């Protein structure tokens, strides 16, 4: 351990292993969690655009009542693949990307516990992405049974081929599960065992708590989906009778297998975004996260409760009355730990010294839309009301408020917040604010009209509809097109800022966190010296240092 110090040349001319100048690095089997994180995010975003394009066509079809833009089979393939791509190719990989990039830095580790497993898990993503894309081109087209793939529709296979859109879909989803479980084992091990000295549970940033909670759900829930998918695949390919009513099987049992995972899956999606909000609000309000210990623990409570609410997707499926009532109560209960977080964020912001940067705007916008979604969510938990709006556009409006309103906007908040750290450059604030305005207006315009549509009884997944729904659909479609346009300033901003934005420095936001103690971008092994943590994570307004040593040279 020599004490000789290296003369560090001016950062902008000294090649850093983490710097983005070497773009080829992103096409390799790199085991650096920072590279893998960016790989995940970029691949996911490409599929976000692809899934969004499908949505544009759908909204084009829905501009007018009759099914006159595309054939019905095409529309059904579109909505199926839109949902499938958005979930399995956008949200899960994107969130794994954020977690991958940030968690080791935030806990003071040099990398994930299993760097090669990490890379392997990532490289599976393009594989099943290709499978899903290829499914558009096989005879019979892609899966047209919705992203739930309910039998018997998913077993009908009108083309009669063994290799059809549905079996490719099942294969892709199974591979996605393998990749996710690999990632979950990695992240859980990392968070449980590789925190820096001094970082006890309540010195760990809330983002890490939420990521841990989310990955625990993946570990417990995904295998149930795998089991159901395996049985569905056998029904489809070799003619077993698990879910086929003609052979004595039970199609409703599939729904139980499916939703036992897929409900908790939505908490896998939202929890890390909760974590992003918890990280962003303190920085731009210059105030500690209000009630941080409770906010942290509520993440695990949500994980626990998430396992016992799944039947609320099946209130109209022929479930017995006692089951409906039981799951109504558990579903409503989950609003309590969630509400605690919402109120905590408001209390964090209240009385602070706010800076409405793009990241903060997206976080605030995301919080507002999540609030609305949470309220419609409680309504949906109520069985008699849900029976009326189940499978209508009311539900579609609700979950898009969560997925677009909270998750996508939370993603944007995260990117604008950590872009300087990841790239060493600052993005253009004006373009960022334009992006926010277009997104916020577009999302509300697209998804708010879905609520009256649903109340009036317009079913979801329809290529055509009765004329009385036209007005709301036109509004929604306009919003949809606006959302498509809104991605343009973002893409422009990212590309131009990454290549020629002004230098950002180590900590442009004067934020408190281990990741802000190292250079932007961080060096290959993150920390020259593993930090020794001596205080809690959100010390705004106080003079306590975060660490006892200096984890970065100079």
């Amino acid at each position: 351990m020599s004490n000789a110090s290296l003369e560090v040349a001016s950062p902008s001319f000294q090649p850093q292993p983490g710097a983005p100048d070497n773009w080829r690095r992103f096409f390799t089997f790199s085991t650096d969690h920072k590279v893998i994180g960016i790989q995940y995010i970029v691949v996911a975003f490409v599929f976000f655009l692809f899934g969004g394009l499908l949505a544009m066509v759908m909204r084009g079809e829905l501009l007018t009542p009759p099914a006159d833009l595309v054939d019905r089979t095409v529309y059904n393939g579109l909505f199926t693949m839109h949902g499938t791509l958005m979930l399995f190719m956008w949200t899960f990989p994107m969130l794994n990307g954020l977690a991958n990039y940030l968690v080791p830095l935030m806990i003071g580790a040099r990398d994930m516990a299993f760097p090669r497993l990490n890379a392997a898990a990532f490289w599976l993503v393009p594989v099943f992405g290709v499978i899903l894309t290829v499914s558009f081109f096989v005879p019979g087209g892609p899966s047209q049974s919705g992203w739930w793939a309910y039998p018997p529709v998913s077993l009908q296979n009108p083309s009669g081929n063994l290799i059809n859109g549905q079996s490719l879909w099942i294969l892709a989803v199974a591979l996605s599960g393998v990749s996710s479980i690999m990632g979950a084992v990695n992240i859980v091990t990392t968070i449980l065992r590789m925190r820096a000295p001094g970082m006890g549970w309540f010195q760990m940033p809330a983002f890490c708590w939420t990521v841990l909670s989310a990955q625990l759900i993946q570990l417990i829930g995904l295998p149930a989906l795998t089991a159901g998918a395996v049985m569905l695949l056998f029904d489809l390919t070799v003619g077993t009778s698990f879910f086929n009513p003609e052979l004595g099987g039970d199609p409703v049992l599939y729904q139980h297998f499916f939703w036992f995972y897929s409900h908790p899956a939505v908490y896998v999606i939202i929890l890390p975004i909760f974590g992003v909000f918890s990280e962003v609000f303190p920085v731009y309000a210059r105030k500690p996260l209000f009630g941080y210990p409770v906010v942290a623990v509520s993440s695990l409570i949500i994980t626990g409760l998430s396992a016992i609410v799944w039947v609320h997707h099946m209130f109209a499926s022929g479930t017995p009355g006692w089951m409906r009532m039981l799951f109504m109560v558990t579903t409503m209960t989950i609003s309590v730990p969630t509400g605690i977080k919402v109120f905590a964020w408001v209390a964090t912001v209240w009385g602070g010294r706010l800076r409405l940067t793009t990241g903060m705007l997206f976080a605030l916008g995301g919080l507002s839309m999540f609030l609305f979604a949470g309220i419609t969510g409680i309504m949906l938990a109520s069985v008699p009301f849900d029976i009326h709006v189940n499978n209508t556009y009311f539900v579609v409006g609700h979950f898009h408020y969560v997925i677009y309103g909270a998750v996508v906007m939370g993603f944007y908040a995260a990117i604008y917040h950590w872009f300087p750290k990841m790239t060493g450059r600052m993005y253009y604030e004006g373009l960022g604010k334009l992006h926010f305005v277009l997104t916020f207006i577009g999302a509300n315009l697209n998804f708010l009209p879905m609520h009256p549509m649903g109340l009036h009884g317009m079913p979801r997944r329809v290529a055509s509809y009765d004329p009385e729904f036209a007005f709301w659909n036109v509004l929604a479609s306009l919003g949809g097109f606006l959302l498509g346009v809104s991605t343009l300033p973002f893409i422009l901003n990212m590309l131009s800022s990454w290549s020629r934005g002004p230098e950002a420095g180590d900590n442009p936001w004067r934020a408190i966190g281990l990741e802000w103690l190292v250079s932007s971008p961080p060096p290959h092994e993150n920390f020259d010296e593993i930090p020794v943590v001596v205080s809690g994570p959100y010390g705004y307004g106080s003079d306590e240092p975060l660490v006892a040593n200096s984890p970065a040279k100079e």
Partner: protein
Amino acid sequence: MNRRTIAKLIGLAIAALLLSLWIGQQAYTWMLPQAAAEAILVDNLFSFMTTIGSFIFFGVMGTLIYSMIFQRAPKYDSKDGPPIEGNLKLEIVWTAIPIMLVIWIAGFSYQTYDHMSLLGTMAPRAMGMATAAAAALEEPTAPAQSSIEVSARQWAWEFYYPEQAVRSTELHLPVNERAHLVLTSEDVLHGFFVPAFRVKQDVVPGRAIDFEFTPIREGRYRLRDSEYSGTYFAANQTNVVVESATAYEQWLATAAATPPTSAENVAHEEFRRATDNDTLGWTTVKPAPAPIVNYASSEEDPYE
């Protein structure tokens, strides 16, 4: 907190409450006409939840917007805010109040569900915003006649009245009488959904599901397939006619005397046209032939 602040907060809370109550009343106008006793119950529940939801929404959004406007850091200010890490009393309050609200909403919902299941022939009539409290908790009466058999398929609805041996693609029901249906599917999952009644039940192949409700308002209403059932799912719609007992009996008698013919069927028509013009998309399950019925519905018929 000083007294002026408390007074201001109470004032704001009252204003929010009044606004929420008003919106709760507006909620009734966001729904279709209440054509069944169930609709009154569901609408009351929806109005109640909308009121509570609005109050929470205004409270939280109001706080955030106030903060966003009035609590911004001055332009060149780089100071931190106050190092407030929590407030035990406040946190207990915002845990306890949601728990109580959840219990309240769950209780109201349970009651509503209970009433819907037990609603007998003494169903309250539609009076706009009439409460459902008048509904007596009577045991459901045994059906006076055998149930109407509802058969769902890809892609048509067929209704069979066994006592009169009448087949129809339009569901006719006598007003103010409990309707008893038996739902079956010939192929895949479907959903029996009449928005004006606020009732819905998935139709599961391999099962015969008993389903009942009480229509209370004469008129013609839309019936839609609500559980995705394949290519022509969106076209799998028909109408429900609620009419006086006399009109109903007359309809049944006329239908019984009419020889069965092929009904209008959107799915079948579209498929045939696409096959003729060679404009089919990807391979699809072929629609079942149009139902052969004594009485056929028409897509031209107006409904509410």
